[in-house]
């Protein structure tokens, strides 16, 4: 059952939220030791919340659009009633004194917060192997990664351990795990959803978005969270369209751009096959397919892996053991307290990116690296601006490969960074992107189709994605091995 289907049944009082949450926790008990999607869970609190919702409905109240629906939240978003660890030892016991804006939205709409999901430490990674508390496993194959950094959120939805989940996407961290776990994942336009309460990794790239079983659920969740928040000065004051309604409207005549650079070396042939088949479905629906070029695509990874670590080196400077989080033992002076706390509290990938960012911003290197990367960012944005003059959307694979094995890309950081090749330019440009399931490899691993649209065109993006979903039935085609 999808989140929307459940919400309707709960509102109609055909099913109780309490029963739903009880069943869910039974399933979580069985699957959590195998999948490790969650870092924290609270069955009692969830049941209490579910009972409140059922009682409110019995009284004839309207407890919200998501009333009684179990939702999981990536552990880099602040929640007052759960720890918020960012999968790091440096925040292992941190309890935020406030809720993130998106968490407030979920609560206001009556959702039942089930727990916090696993991620790569501070959202830095593409496999969830960088979590300080152990990886999450792909529900489709226990020896494979779920993708990252929102691996826990993607796996939770794929394994029916939550009906809906929230993730964050800085270089592909919602879309790539969605593709690898066979679920829907949407990164909204930069500025569409408030980042207040999202632990900052790269402030000009980060966005929160939904991971869900289908496009309707993703639209539904986006509608509940999008909109102005004065506490995030990068959040635009723009009306929120009724995304669910917009997604169900008939598909307009479409011009789909297929960028040649996204179908070259390094793309797994089975992934290519399924993505091209998906694009053909649109052709049958009357869309015009146009070959386009995004000429600076090849430079996206380099630009991103300068810009993001630079911003991260600044954002992570606050973790110093002074006010919250881990503090090293026996510190004798303030500077060594900072330096030892951070060396002991941060994992290797986080340290690597802080060093990379600090180096790229340092005197003598700033122009060659950071400034250069910001200029290349402008060129990448222009490629999209030009492409959207003659197309309504762009389609390509989400990930160059299906889920790879644990340990396969951890020896060399660069090989892991190259996993992001098709998602990264979306964040640099600030445009929205969605990954939807479009098939399985012969080995039974999910494949994702990625669709991109211009800024603030989530309504169109969701409508395009929904049209494919109506024509195909990947959600019901198979069940993950873990279930």
């Amino acid at each position, binding site marked *: 059952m999808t989140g929307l289907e459940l919400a309707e049944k709960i509102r109609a009082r055909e099913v109780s939220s309490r029963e739903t949450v009880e069943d869910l926790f039974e399933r979580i008990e069985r699957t959590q030791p195998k999948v490790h999607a969650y870092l924290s869970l609270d069955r009692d609190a969830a049941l209490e919340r579910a009972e409140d919702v059922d009682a409110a409905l019995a009284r004839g109240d309207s407890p919200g659009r998501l009333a009684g629906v179990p939702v999981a939240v990536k552990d880099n978003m602040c929640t007052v009633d759960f720890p918020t660890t960012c999968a790091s030892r440096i925040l292992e016991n941190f309890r935020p004194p406030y809720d993130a804006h998106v968490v407030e939205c979920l609560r206001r709409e009556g959702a039942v917060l089930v727990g916090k999901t696993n991620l790569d430490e501070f959202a830095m990674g593409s496999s969830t192997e960088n979590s300080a508390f152990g990886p999450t496993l792909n529900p489709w194959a226990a020896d494979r990664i779920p993708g990252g950094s929102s691996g826990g959120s993607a796996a939770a939805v794929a394994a029916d351990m939550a009906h809906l989940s929230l993730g964050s996407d800085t270089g592909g961290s919602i879309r790539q795990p969605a593709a690898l776990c066979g679920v829907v994942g949407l990164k909204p336009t930069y500025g569409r959803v408030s980042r207040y309460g999202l632990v900052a990794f790269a402030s000009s790239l980060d966005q929160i978005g939904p991971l869900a079983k289908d496009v309707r659920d993703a639209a539904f969740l986006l509608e509940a969270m999008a909109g102005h928040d004065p506490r995030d000065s990068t959040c635009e004051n723009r009306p929120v369209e009724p995304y669910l309604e917009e997604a169900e409207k008939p598909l307009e005549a479409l011009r789909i751009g297929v960028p040649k650079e996204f179908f070259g070396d390094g793309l797994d042939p089975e992934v290519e096959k399924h993505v091209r088949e998906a694009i053909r479905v649109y052709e049958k629906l009357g869309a015009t397919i146009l070959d386009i070029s995004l000429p600076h695509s090849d430079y996206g990874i380099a630009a991103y892996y300068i810009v993001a670590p630079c911003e991260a080196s600044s954002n992570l400077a606050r973790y110093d053991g002074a006010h919250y989080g881990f503090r090293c033992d026996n510190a004798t002076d303030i500077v060594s307290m900072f330096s030892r706390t951070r060396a002991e509290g941060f994992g290797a990938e986080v340290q690597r990116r802080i060093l990379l960012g*600090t180096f790229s911003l340092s005197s003598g290197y700033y122009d060659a690296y950071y400034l250069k990367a910001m200029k290349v960012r402008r060129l990448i944005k222009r490629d999209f601006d030009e492409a959207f003059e003659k197309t309504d959307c762009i389609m390509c694979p989400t990930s160059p490969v299906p889920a790879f094995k644990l340990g396969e890309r951890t020896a060399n950081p660069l090989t892991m960074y190259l996993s992001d090749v098709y998602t990264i330019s979306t964040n640099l440009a600030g445009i929205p992107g969605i990954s939807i399931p479009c098939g399985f490899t012969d080995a039974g691993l999910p494949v994702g189709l990625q669709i991109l649209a211009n800024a603030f065109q989530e309504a169109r993006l969701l409508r395009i994605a929904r049209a494919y979903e109506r024509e195909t039935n990947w959600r019901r085609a198979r069940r993950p091995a873990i279930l």
Partner: protein
Amino acid sequence: MALTKKDVEWVAHLSRLELPDATLEKMAEQLGEVLDYFDKLNELDTGDVSAMSHPGALKNVFREDEPRDSLPRDAALGNAPDRADGCFRVPRVIE
């Protein structure tokens, strides 16, 4: 670009990361490889391209300078590793 252990030591000092020698050596190797990869950006002529720091059009988002309640002291101290007299306590700052 090749990085020496000394280069990494300097950057680690700027980043307030006290890393053991073995880590510094490993980082020098790995970061060197990543920096080599960044060289490809030099293939692009960006002479007359303006830097893009941010995707949005927003700038100078201000509010009225009206005082309002902020985080209560207890909440602010809630996760303090060490506290005294309503403040965060840390090792000596001034020699």
